[in-house]
């Protein structure tokens, strides 16, 4: 699934082994378990999307990879080192969703400030040009629009030529054109060996730009694969038909059926073998008005991250 052969012999960009993070645990209470038993390897050159609902543990995970917080259990390594060591060497950079800028500095001053902190850095003008804001260098950061500020953060992240780039909702506030240009630059970099991990709420963005999607929910990886594989997981289809007094137990016994429910006279069956359900309904029952519906990534996202997660464990097993 990945391009690890190209970088044989090198440690992975990210390795999370059994990582858990608990917040606010004291003697009396256990606190909140934000992440538990997270196992994940990201190789150099991979472009990975972290997808998951709010509170799923995406930002907690990114914080641990950046060394901003420590796992309460398990081990985090970045290029085979402790996260903080990788950050000190300019190997990791992050683009945060909001904040993290001084409004009273100009764009160029912000870049010079940041560049001065690294042992070696690319020229400021080059980073500005790469982020598409060469014409903004004299402007005060506070006078920049949300999308422009996001590019300032991006330019800052490029200064140390990081081998791992972490992006938290990177295109928030960008217009369509800016978004396209942004991803073109990122993909360019990934092609030259930089690992990119981005958290996003834009499912379409994850599907279109990531080589690999890691679905996180309730602090766990619930699915891990390409966009097509993730879609196939929940590919389950939904079969609907009008069938008064349906025998739900019989439907559940059919191969591939995940869930069968009724909505009035209508039955709704989620299955990965829609043919079997359709054949059964049309030959052995009086069902009519039968419809079969396929799911997009959006549906997969909801299915895999919902609270009930009927097939979460089997999903994980299938792809791990």
């Amino acid at each position, binding site marked *: 699934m990945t391009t690890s052969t190209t970088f044989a012999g090198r440690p992975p960009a990210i390795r999370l082994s059994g990582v858990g993070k608990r917040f606010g645990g004291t003697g009396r209470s256990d606190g909140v378990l934000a992440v538990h038993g997270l196992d994940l390897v990201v190789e150099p050159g991979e472009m990975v999307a972290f997808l998951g609902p709010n509170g799923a543990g995406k930002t907690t995970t990114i914080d641990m990879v950046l060394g*901003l917080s420590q796992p309460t259990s398990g081990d985090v390594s970045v290029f085979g080192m402790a996260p903080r060591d990788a950050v000190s060497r300019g190997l990791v950079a992050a683009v945060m969703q909001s904040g993290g*800028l*001084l409004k009273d500095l100009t764009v160029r001053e912000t870049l010079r400030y940041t560049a001065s902190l690294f042992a*070696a850095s690319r020229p400021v003008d080059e980073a500005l040009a790469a982020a598409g804001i060469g014409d903004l260098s004299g402007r005060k950061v506070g006078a920049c629009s949300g999308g422009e500020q996001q590019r300032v953060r991006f330019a800052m992240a490029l200064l140390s030529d990081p081998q791992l780039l972490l992006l938290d909702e990177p295109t928030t506030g960008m217009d369509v054109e800016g978004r396209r240009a942004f991803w073109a630059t990122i993909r360019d970099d990934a092609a030259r060996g930089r690992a990119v991990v981005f958290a996003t709420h834009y499912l379409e963005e994850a599907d279109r730009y990531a080589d690999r999607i890691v679905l996180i929910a309730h602090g766990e990886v619930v699915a891990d694969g390409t966009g097509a594989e993730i879609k196939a997981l929940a590919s389950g289809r939904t079969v609907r038909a009008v069938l008064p007094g349906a025998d739900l137990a019989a439907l559940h016994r059919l191969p591939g059926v995940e869930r069968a429910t009724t909505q009035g006279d209508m039955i709704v069956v989620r299955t990965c073998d829609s043919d079997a359900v359709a054949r059964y309904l049309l030959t052995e029952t009086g069902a009519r008005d039968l419809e079969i519906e396929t799911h997009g990534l959006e549906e997969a996202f909801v299915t895999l991250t919902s609270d009930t997660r009927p097939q979460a464990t089997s999903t994980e097993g299938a792809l791990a």
Partner: protein
Amino acid sequence: MSTLETDPATRRVPPLGGFNRTLLGIELMRVLRNRRTVIFALAFPVAMFFVFGSGDQGEQKVGVGNVAAYIMVSMALYGGALIAAATGAGVATERAQGWSRQLRTTPLHPVAYVLVKALVALSAGVVAIVAVNVVGAAKGTVDLPLGAWIACGLTTLVCILSFAALGVFVGYLVPGENAMQILGPGLALLSFLGGLFIPLDQYSAVIRDIAYWTPMYGVAEVARAPLTHELPWFAIVNALAWLGLFVAGAAWRMSADTARV
């Protein structure tokens, strides 16, 4: 497009935890570019020196110098304290804006950051102190031996560190960028009470007794000691106690905030 060394094993860590002159220069420029800071910490003390340091009484002897010198040192302390407090308050603002978190994703070591802020507070303090002193020298009414002049500048510089800590403390207590709206008038009031603007012997006994307990009194006596050659023991206790209190307050608020990064 240029790329740096891509092999993780050969990447270097910056020396001194990321501390460097560019960083120091930009941070100092930020303080001196703030219009409010420049007006209240540079222009205002200079103007006050002109108002209070003029007239015949400026010629009167005080210690090894004269009254004009006494007022010059007092105004330099006021300006320096204000600019140091503004720098300190900036730490909390930067944290609120997420800049501290951003810096944590760079090689900059937290100790180097605190060191930069302390040096910026001192450097900006030097600018404020020098501004008043240059005007004092140019005006020609100040009588102060060179050695005592330099000594006063140095004692003043040490004393303003106390207010850098106060700035950090107040910055954390008052959310947003409004800390200076409390620190500005607050320091002016403390300066009146501490005898920076009006000598304490002009006050009634009651107010003077209160003044001995306020934070500007101790540092003012310490800063002027090379000139007056007088330093009551309770002024030293006052200066050290308030320094301890402000540093403890700043450390307390900062550590309470660290959990969130």
